[in-house]
């Protein structure tokens, strides 16, 4: 009796949860489906869900009409490059904050976080003019620099919270045994911190991949990552839904898969430890 009631409740919840999940996911699903339609079928009324002529031509055409691969590589280079550069600077900083905290450590951490709260329009104009005058506008190097800096506070914070879970005695033991600072960080800390560093890397690649304020304002035809490249589809000529969908699907799919793997880190990284 009770068992049957529980099962009926579970069935009801299952139906409800799946319906809501599918509604929320629907725009992404619809984009993926449209990317396999012809342009005529993409705007057909009434629209067809699966019973259409499946084609891959949009994917080849997106590449031919504009060098999609160039922008894809820009995204890869900018997001990976800025994350690696950020880690290089942040690992030593987080090491000292986690294992040799001083009176000021707390203030420094909080101050770093406060830089993340500076609205980008507050510094847009000087950065734009500096980039224009130094030839960094529309270059991958320029974007790597900016994205490294805007995500550095998050990288330091995430690493700090992971490092703090590593027992400091192990590092001290290495120090007693005469390991220098470099050896301590490279051979003792890093191997233990690999999972935390990997999570930090993952979340930051995602954030950098989707960053759309600086990439839109500082890049044009050459260095534009996918965020900025896809914005060029906002002023279309002729039929373009299927091509927009193909370009979007390729831009979203890889990062969506990474994102699904990093659910847990997302909470940790974006709340700065305020929610556990």
């Amino acid at each position, binding site marked *: 009796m009770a068992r049957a009631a529980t099962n009926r409740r579970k069935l009801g919840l299952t139906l409800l949860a799946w319906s809501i999940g599918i509604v929320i996911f629907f725009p992404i699903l619809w984009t993926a489906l449209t990317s396999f339609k012809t342009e005529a079928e993409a705007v057909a009324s009434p629209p067809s869900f699966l019973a259409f002529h499946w084609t891959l031509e949009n994917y080849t055409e997106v590449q031919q009409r504009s060098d999609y691969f160039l922008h894809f590589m820009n995204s890869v280079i900018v997001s990976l490059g800025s994350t690696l550069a950020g880690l290089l600077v942040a690992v030593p900083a987080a090491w000292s904050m986690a294992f040799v905290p001083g009176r000021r450590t707390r203030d420094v951490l909080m101050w770093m976080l406060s830089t993340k709260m500076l609205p980008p329009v507050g510094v847009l104009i000087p950065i734009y003019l500096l980039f224009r005058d130094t030839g960094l506008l529309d270059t991958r190097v320029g974007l790597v620099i900016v994205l490294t800096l805007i995500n550095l506070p998050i990288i330091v914070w995430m690493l700090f919270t992971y490092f703090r879970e590593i027992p400091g005695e192990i590092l001290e033991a290495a120090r007693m045994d005469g390991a220098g600072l470099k050896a301590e960080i490279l051979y003792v800390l890093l191997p233990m911190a690999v999972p935390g560093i990997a999570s930090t890397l993952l979340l930051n690649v995602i954030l950098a991949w989707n960053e*759309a304020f600086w990439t839109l304002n500082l890049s044009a035809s050459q260095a534009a990552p996918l965020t900025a490249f896809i914005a060029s589809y906002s002023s279309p000529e002729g039929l373009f839904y299927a091509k927009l969908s193909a370009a979007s699907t390729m831009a979203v799919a890889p990062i969506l898969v990474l*994102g699904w793997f990093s659910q847990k880190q997302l909470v940790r990284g974006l709340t700065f430890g305020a929610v556990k």
Partner: protein
Amino acid sequence: MATAHSRAAARLTMSPAVLLLLCWMLIPLVMTLYFSFLRYNLLMPGTEEWIGVLNYQYFLTDPAFFAALANTLALVGGVLVLTIAGGIGLALLLDQPFWGQGIVRLLVIAPFFVMPTVSALVWKNMLMNPVNGLFAAIAKGLGLQPFDFLAEAPLSSIILIVTWQWLPFATLILLTALQSLDRERLEAAEMDGAGALDRFIHIILPHLARAMTVVTLIQTIFLLSVFAEILVTTNGGPGTATTNITYLVYAQSLLQFDVGGGSAGGIVAVVLANIVAVFLMRMIGRNLDI
């Protein structure tokens, strides 16, 4: 424990990160502040001169500023209410046992990973377009007149798009908080005859209060700077119907080349964001035990 040697090393290892962030924050901010007191137009090079607070006077008395301020508040407030209410509902649902929990969770958080330009263009063209969009097709199927979302209700449409993007974040944080709730307390309350609504109001909501505050503060920081979604859907229009402060500063400085006026707007945006940031920093600081 910490020797003088390791203290020195700590300062050394921290300095690159500190110096870089200091440069990033201080130099451009001081430049913006300086520009905001100049007559400085990129189309008229060489005519820069000190004009005191005139830029602020113009910016703060411009009707576009009040429109942008109202739009910013509506956008931030609207998205916050929708994502937190929806997030609590979804978190409660996802916390229940049902078949395929893991998969539904993946479906629900997916929009967070879609880049802003893609989600805005997909919503604008494939869903909301009054001629070829899916919503129009559904309306026609039901015998209704298709609704031109971005022309008739531009700001609400953008609120809808941004809500879709941020609902996963709110859900995920609230779900994490919900799962740390002591089940025994709920069961004890149920034994004592507390109904579902009672348990929600007196046990679950207070437990989620902290997470709700964090979601509010973090989302506010990001929502004050919504930009790409506006750029690719409405360009701030029609008129100034969807111009927020961020977009207004962008338009003034990079479309009208008025660096002085744009800088004044940038400083105003910084001041507004700081009001929120102070509260957020306090919340995070309280939880930081060093």
